[in-house]
């Protein structure tokens, strides 16, 4: 049962309420910095043709995430798309495309929260794209112009983008003290190692079709973009850091707890302040309960009042309409 949430089709989109404010805000800052740099790169390197291409490809990735295939036991594999976007567009444009996909999912479809959007962009956009780029470019280099480089590179890039992004989600939940590291990290890693295979297989299928129909889209020149080396190193660093930090964190959850304690000072600092009044006469009861009841009564009154007012104004409107028709 503890594993159930990690099996849901979109366990990668963190909703609001699950990340501590500090973790959310730090990841927002990281994401904004990377997006700003990507925008600069895209403006410099790519032609104006890229703007419609990025928009329509973002829509295609959103739609492509609906194409699922059953794996076993009610779970299904489907696409996240960071790897394929990186392969087709190069890393900087792919970061913008993934940002758009994740942004629309949060804003319109509530797949992932708004305050948590920074974290979701970071996991699926930045981490997903950087690690895919690192793996795909390395393997294309090794393979030269042979076609197996495209497919093996695509498969591994897709797999690693899923697994590393999942590790990042687990670490962020653990840092926010929402999910204990020693449960969240192995669960997310194990399940996404499988989901990643699904992503990899779909990516191979998609690349095979594109390779047959439009091989020009897969020429390796796209991968050698400006600033690509820095991103290549970045992808390697992210993959390594998470690969090292995750087992450490899950075997020493106390260490992470300590970090969380330091990080989550917003919560802990407010904790004592909040408890000034309770623990007084009837430990924790009198004031807390009285305040809760008062808030309940007050809240109900507001809601009731608004409902009455709306109902009344509607009735008046309807009466007005009736009178007008008469």
């Amino acid at each position, binding site marked *: 049962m503890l594993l159930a949430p990690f099996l849901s089709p979109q366990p990668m989109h963190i909703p609001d309420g699950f990340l501590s404010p500090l973790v959310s805000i730090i990841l927002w800052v990281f994401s904004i910095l990377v997006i700003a740099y990507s925008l600069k790169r895209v403006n410099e390197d790519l032609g104006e043709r890229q703007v419609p291409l990025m928009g329509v490809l973002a829509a295609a990735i*959103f739609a492509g995430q609906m194409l699922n*295939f059953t794996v076993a036991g009610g779970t299904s594999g489907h696409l996240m798309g960071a790897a394929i976007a990186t392969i*087709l567009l190069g890393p900087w444009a792919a970061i913008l495309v993934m940002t758009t996909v994740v942004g629309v999912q949060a804003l319109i*479809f509530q797949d992932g929260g708004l305050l948590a959007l920074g974290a979701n962009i970071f996991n699926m956009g930045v981490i997903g794209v950087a690690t895919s780029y690192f793996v795909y470019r390395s393997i294309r280099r090794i393979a030269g112009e042979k076609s197996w480089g495209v497919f093996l590179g695509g498969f591994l890039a897709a797999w690693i983008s899923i697994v590393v992004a999942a590790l990042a989600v687990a670490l962020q939940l653990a840092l926010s003290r929402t999910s204990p590291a020693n449960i969240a990290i192995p669960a997310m890693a194990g399940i996404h190692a499988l989901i990643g295979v699904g992503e990899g297989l779909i990516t191979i299928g998609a690349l095979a079709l594109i390779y047959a129909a439009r091989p020009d889209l897969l020429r390796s020149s796209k991968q050698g973009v400006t600033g690509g080396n820095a991103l290549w190193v970045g992808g390697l660093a992210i993959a390594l850091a998470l690969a090292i930090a995750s087992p450490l964190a899950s075997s020493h959850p106390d260490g992470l707890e300590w970090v969380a304690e330091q990080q989550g000072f917003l919560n802990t600092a407010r904790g004592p302040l909040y408890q000034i009044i309770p623990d007084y006469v009837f430990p924790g009861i009198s004031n807390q309960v009285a305040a809760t009841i008062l808030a309940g009564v007050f809240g109900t009154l507001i809601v009731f009042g608004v409902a009455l007012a709306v109902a009344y104004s509607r009735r008046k409107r309807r009466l007005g309409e009736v009178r007008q028709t008469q």
Partner: protein
Amino acid sequence: MHVHFLDPYRPGSSPIHQLDARVKLILTLAYILTAALTPIGAWPVYILLLAWAVTIEILSELGVGFVLRRAALALPFVLAALPVIFTAPGAALIHLPIGPWILTITLPGVERFISIALKSWISVQMAIVLAATTSFPDLLTAMRAIKVPRLLVAIFGLMWRYLFVLVDEALRLMRARLSRSGESDRPDLKAGGALIWRAKVAGGMAGSLFLRAIERSDRIYMAMVARGYDGEVRAAPLPRLSRRDWLTLWLCLGLLLALLTSAALF
């Protein structure tokens, strides 16, 4: 453009519909931030925040039931926080013997779990109201107003414009697969070949979807050039906020701040 079943926007003329999209976006973000900053176990504040959300739902004339039903769909993630009821340190509530182990549910653990679930639940309600009462072009204006770069807003706009076209395309691909792969309702009849084969078919579908998208984007680019596109993304200046919008904005921000202070000082 036809109305698509995926589009969450419900047209209306309620006060919430009429509020400027910029005010709505900022207030939604402020509300969610307030919920996130409210400490664990501050029940009175949670109740007032929930009353706020229900109030907005009534005012928006969407129907409270509609919003709550949609909010429930976003809830399964809550289970990710479930282990915390066993691991948070504190006074033991119940001991559950499971085989050789004894799981201990702690009081702070339960408090933390319920708080996380509540925060998530009320936050998603607000996000649903925002999406259901604001048309996407208005949201794009709001994004420009909070200084999202113009190029990014343009990509968002293009994505939205072609989202439903490509979703329809994906649905057609899936229908085609369904009608050819001998799928059946009977559980003992498995559809399609082996796992690898199914993955390959799904991959081929994704690939053709991407190819169609790329070809479509070429046509779009040409149409844009034909209408004078030169690589620069231009937009009309932002309209001014009415006095009522300003008043709503500051009043609600003040109320949220008051709630937050009361959460800290209670």
